[in-house]
């Protein structure tokens, strides 16, 4: 490959074209997101033409379509977008932090902690406080996820230095304990509780409300000013922690921000929608193979593409078995698994696993 015949994948990353192509790329992803949102709002048990959707969102809709869109479809689409963006963003951050393309948001222990808290709420909570306990599930799942992350962070930090390897391995150990405790509670659960928990682990956006999507978006919005800082830090961390530090990075500071941010974002996402796998793993991968590994572009692009993919998956979940709904985790895993495998085999040489 000579210097003047550069494939597109590299051309987009050449400093001479960088800014322009970066904007074009983000614009394309935004258009894709808008299209997916429009599709998601218009399709469902009742089909509303896209033109009517636009009318309604602008405030000129009919009463009937207004009702469906504003109380059911819009909050759900927003939540799907917010959760997808959060998960994909956290996946990109985790992969950068752990310097491993196989990392996913669950690595900080959020998933195992949240799953344990969820089953505890469903089983123990319902036994003690009745069915109303389930209403608290988002709060307990979030708290459980965050608690495990902070515990892991404390275990992996000695003398002001956090070892991400220790964190990863301790995460496996604590995850095993949490899984055992979860298993014990499942053993104690009634048929109904078991069903409830199983659905929660498969993930669903059926519980979407304006309130929940608001929380997801506020947290996401608060994180945006941190993206450029994180992006530079994660780029430098690709050199290894020692070299990142030599190049002027406050490594511990970057790691702390990355870990806390992903714990919060993933915690909120898991608490409102259950466990949705593969979005955080696959989206950064797709992007790395097309626009390159630079996090400055990767973080916003991950958020946009993650939102798009989860909105589409949710639309499919609502339509595939209508009027019933498929758990969305099934769809993301069915799409994500083979896609991931395909990418892995196609571009093996570019990844260091």
């Amino acid at each position, binding site marked *: *490959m000579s*210097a003047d015949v550069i494939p597109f994948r*590299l051309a987009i990353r*050449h400093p001479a074209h960088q800014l322009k192509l970066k904007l074009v790329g983000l614009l394309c992803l935004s258009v894709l997101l808008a299209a997916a949102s429009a599709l998601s709002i218009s399709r469902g048990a009742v089909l509303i033409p896209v033109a009517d959707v636009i009318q309604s969102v602008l405030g000129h809709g009919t009463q009937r379509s207004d009702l469906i869109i504003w109380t059911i479809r819009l909050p759900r689409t927003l939540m799907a977008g917010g959760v997808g963006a959060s998960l994909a963003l956290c996946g990109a951050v985790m992969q950068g932090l752990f*310097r491993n393309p196989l990392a996913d948001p669950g690595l900080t222990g959020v998933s195992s902690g949240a799953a344990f808290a969820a089953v505890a709420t469903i089983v123990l909570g319902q036994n003690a406080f009745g069915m109303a306990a389930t209403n608290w599930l988002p709060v307990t799942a979030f708290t459980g996820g965050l608690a495990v992350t902070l515990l892991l962070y404390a275990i992996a930090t000695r003398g002001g230095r956090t070892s991400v390897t220790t964190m990863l391995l301790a995460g496996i150990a604590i995850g095993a304990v949490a899984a055992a405790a979860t298993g014990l509670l499942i053993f104690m659960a009634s048929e109904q509780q078991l069903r409830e928990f199983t659905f929660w682990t498969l993930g669903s956006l059926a519980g979407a409300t304006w309130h929940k999507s608001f929380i997801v978006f506020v947290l996401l919005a608060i994180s945006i000013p941190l993206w450029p800082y994180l992006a530079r830090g994660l780029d430098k961390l690709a050199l290894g922690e020692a070299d990142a530090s030599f190049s002027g990075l406050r490594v511990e500071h970057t790691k702390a921000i990355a870990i806390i941010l992903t714990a919060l974002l993933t915690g909120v996402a898991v608490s409102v929608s259950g466990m949705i796998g593969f979005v955080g793993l696959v989206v950064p991968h797709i992007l790395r193979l097309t626009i390159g590994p630079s996090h400055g572009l990767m973080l916003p692009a991950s958020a946009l593409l993650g939102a798009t993919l989860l909105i589409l998956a949710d639309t499919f979940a609502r339509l595939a078995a209508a009027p019933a709904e498929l758990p969305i985790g099934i769809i993301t895993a069915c799409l994500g698994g083979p896609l991931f495998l395909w990418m892995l085999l196609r571009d093996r040489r*570019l990844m*260091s696993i």
Partner: protein
Amino acid sequence: MITVENASFTRGRRTILRDVSLSLGINELVAIVGPNGAGKTTLLHLLTGALEPSSGRVLFEGMPLHTWRKDHLATRRAVLSQSRNVSFPFTVYEILALSMPDRTNRRHLQSLSETALASVGLAGFGARVLQELSGGEQQRVHLARALMQLAATRSAAPQMLFLDEPVSGLDLQHQIQTMQLVRQMTGDAFGAIAVIHDLNLALSFADRVICISEGKVACDGPPATALTSELISRVFKVSTQSLPVPGGGRVLVPDMHPAKQSTTTDHPAKVIS
């Protein structure tokens, strides 16, 4: 200017460096030599702040190294370390940009990149993906990155370059090219410190050689006086001859078959077998 004051470093029960005191100036090319496991790399880690001494201290420009802000320190010194694997498929341009201060002008960045790449003999490699280059080429990309980090903030303030085995894994041409490059930059408020295995490279290019043996400084001085045959046989357990080179200077030739000679004198019994 970097000063090591009575620094020791222990890992577990093993003392790797024992009460080392040194002062390294900003206008010299210093070669750190010594056998495997002597503590060379540990010394370099202490000098760069990658490790903190178990006792004693390391001062950079009079201030303890760990009290420096990382971004300020990065403008004053760069490090080419031994770990050179990058976790994601970055292009060479992207790698070079990683060591730049946060707000570097795009055009300035590009011109610095081209200069740095040309200086390590990799002109035209900018758009290539790092992992697709050979090991030696990747190593030179990292050298270019270190040079660029300092060039970006070249000012009146003195700067230092630390190199951990900069020529290991390079072919002969690039070994010499790399050492020449570092040699040319040294002086004029620019100091370089390199851990080197090849004693002849140290002899030909360094202003000063520090030999580390069993955690202590075994010699310290200009190469001609420091690297004596007596010292080399004591520290490296290899006997050498110092031969003059036409055109000036000298070269160390190790005795490649020491067993034949030494056994006849030291262990006569073994000759029989």
